[in-house]
């Protein structure tokens, strides 16, 4: 048994994907099976297995996935970004307001959404990389700023994006087209680009290296500040992208919310094998992690629990995943 496991771990494709990513995929199936069995028992005869539920879970997985991809870069550099949830909502509010109140063209509004995210990322990145502020506190502060600006911009009104006129709601086709999950294809495509950036470009190499030993990288003549800032810009930009997929799925955004989603995105990262101490990160893991988070919330609701259970579980998952990461590192040293 032990030998068989070792042999499996040494298979080429297992090594490329990483053993714990395969475990995570198994966990998705296990969770699905568990919810299928438990939902009818706990929620008087409701059936878990149906196509709409899958689509609903995926809707949740998209924006958590984009947020997670962004923050993966930041965590790779050894930092953290708690602002992404609020930034996502701020982006959605500002661009949505532009669309509904200023009647700006839709393509421009989508661009505004991404630009707002990038701007927040740049500001955070500047303070962390060039002014040497701790990323924790910088992103906490920006979270507040993003929440506030979103509210101020829309005069504390919630914004509902148009959902049925063909001219102004084609953005929804990016999420779901003819009841097919187009969003999943886009998420995978963006994840592929992220993977190339992280593993195959100088930018990604520098980010990962400075996550393990910033001073050694600086003394190698690399402008560490530039690359560290870039990680935050990517994180903000992807929060802007996440905003589009959030409104694409749910259309309505309320001011003053959004900050709970950081934790779920970070949970997706750490579950996927991205180390909180920096230096190693998994893009594939983050995508799988996002799906797990989404499936979990779908299951919790289907079984008749409130969303508060989701918060508890997300918190526990972060604790568990980080503990596992720290312990495995200590063992290897």
């Amino acid at each position, binding site marked *: 048994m032990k030998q068989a496991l070792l042999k499996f771990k040494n298979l080429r494709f297992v090594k490329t994907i990483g053993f714990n990513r395969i475990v995570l995929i198994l966990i998705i199936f296990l969770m699905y099976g568990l919810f299928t069995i438990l939902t009818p028992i706990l929620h008087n005869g409701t059936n878990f297995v149906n196509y709409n539920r899958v689509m609903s879970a995926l809707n949740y997985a998209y924006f958590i996935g984009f947020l997670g991809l962004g923050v993966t870069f930041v965590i790779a550099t050894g930092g953290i970004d708690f602002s992404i949830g609020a930034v996502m909502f701020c982006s959605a509010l500002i661009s949505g307001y532009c669309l509904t109140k200023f009647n700006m063209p839709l393509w421009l509004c989508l661009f505004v959404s991404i630009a707002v995210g990038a701007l927040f990322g740049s500001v955070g990145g500047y303070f962390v990389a060039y002014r040497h502020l701790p990323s924790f506190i910088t992103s906490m502060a920006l979270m507040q700023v993003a929440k506030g600006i979103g509210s101020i911009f829309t005069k504390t009104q919630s914004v509902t994006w148009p959902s049925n006129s063909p001219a102004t709601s084609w953005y929804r086709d990016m999420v779901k087209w003819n009841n097919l999950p187009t969003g999943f294809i886009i998420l995978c495509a963006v994840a592929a680009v992220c993977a190339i950036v992280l593993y195959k470009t*100088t930018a990604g190499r520098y980010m990962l290296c400075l996550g393990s030993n910033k001073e050694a*990288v600086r*003394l190698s*003549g690399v402008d560490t500040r530039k690359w560290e800032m870039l990680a935050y810009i990517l994180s903000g930009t992807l929060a802007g992208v996440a905003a589009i997929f959030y409104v694409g799925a749910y259309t309505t955004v309320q001011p003053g919310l959004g900050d709970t989603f950081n934790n779920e995105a970070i949970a997706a990262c750490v579950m996927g094998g991205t180390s909180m101490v920096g*230096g190693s990160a998994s893009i594939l893991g983050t995508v799988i992690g996002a799906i797990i988070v989404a499936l979990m919330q779908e299951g919790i609701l289907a079984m008749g629990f409130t969303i508060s259970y989701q918060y508890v579980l997300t918190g526990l998952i972060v604790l568990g995943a980080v503990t596992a990461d720290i312990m495995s590192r200590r063992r290897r040293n």
Partner: protein
Amino acid sequence: MNEVILTMEGIDKTFPGVHALDHVSLEVRKGEVHALMGENGAGKSTLMKVLTGIYTKDSGTILYEGREVCYSSPREAQAAGIVIVHQELNMMGHLTVAQNIFVGREFKKGLLIDDARMNEEARKLFQQLNIDIDPRETMSRLTVGKQQMCEIAKAISHEAKVIVFDEPSAALTDSEIDQLFRIIRDLRTKQYGIVYISHRMDEIKKITDRVTVMRDGQTVGTLVTADSSKDDIIHMMVGRVIFEEPKTHSRVPDGAMVVLKVEHLNAGRMVQDVSFELRKGEILGFSGLMGAGRTETARALFGADPKESGDIYINGKKVNIHSPQDAVRAGIGYLSEDRKRYGVVLKKNITENSTLACLQRYIKHGNIIDGVAEREVTQKFVDALKTKTPGIDQMVMNLSGGNQQKVVVAKWLISNCEILIFDEPTRGIDVGAKQEIYELMNRLAQEGKSVLMISSEMPEILRMSDRIIVMCEGKKTAEFDVSEATQEKIMNAATREIAV
């Protein structure tokens, strides 16, 4: 003669690969200031760590007040009355003086801390020592000298009988040193036993009664300070058998081009008006004691730390170096003394480490890393430098010290550096690998690279350098051609009294 308070005899301590203490003996009397001297790495600190229970000895006996003792922690030693005043002060800057002195054993009134009583007790301590410090002052607002006085007061408050001063004067100004000596003399008359570790020859003559010299983990001997000269002590410190033959003459051809010229470099207290030249194919040794400012000079030159003033010329052309990026662009590579912190990225593999300084050269299609080219060049340098590793995908963490050093060398060679700064190139490297690093440095020099080598090991300096610069207290104090350099001359320059 006073009675003996502390005797350490036949103390033996081995670390993996190093015989740190080899039957070392030390005897301290009441009312005596006993100097402990030796080069860096001679074993002084290790001996004191054995005394205070930070390390456990392999064999030997420690007699304290006539009884055999063996402490397992500094706390135990402290409780028995043996305390160290450390070189780096262990103070909490945001607390008050009194809070620092009584940290861990605060006076209490019920559940609350009784600050008034702590201030009162601290005031009494300072009175006893004739020191004028307000116990309510915040620690970080005191000068380093005053902070040290507080450290001494803390030691006294533990009812110490033996106080060890570990290079206490290193960070002090002249007037602060005077005050420190006044206190130490005072403690001597009060019958404390005092161990005084220092490199400064003039201080040893001024303040100590006897001096014990250590070398290579052994006790060389104990002298009465008043009856011995500075030369006697230096001779004891360096008089080892040299198995590594020094270079007899410089191997740099006459008229070799000056590749690096540094003029009037200033960067804080540790780098004061340093000027020197480095020629093509030369190994320029930087000698001096710990804290002489050699690493600081190298870091300022490399742009790792900011410099205040000074001009740097490379191949005769003036260059502005404000960051390591500028330095690397100018063809300078720096191999830090602390490889693990500043040299390698431990958790990345050999390839990633080797190309770190010039990754821009191994890309294709815009910004995508060319994995094949990158691995090819890494493999080439692993072969050329004979780095021992199962493969270039090995994490650097899993390599030995010598092989990690080779990875760093490869990094700079791949980025075409013409000037290499080796800071303590063989620190933490075992004897066999040392030889390899020496051969490598000689080969690099022969191939026309220029090497600036900082080393605290005298034989290493004499064996490797074509020319030697000696630094002391942030200043350049001497420059020798290797043909005229001797250990004594270097040690003299390295301990030159600067404070007059």
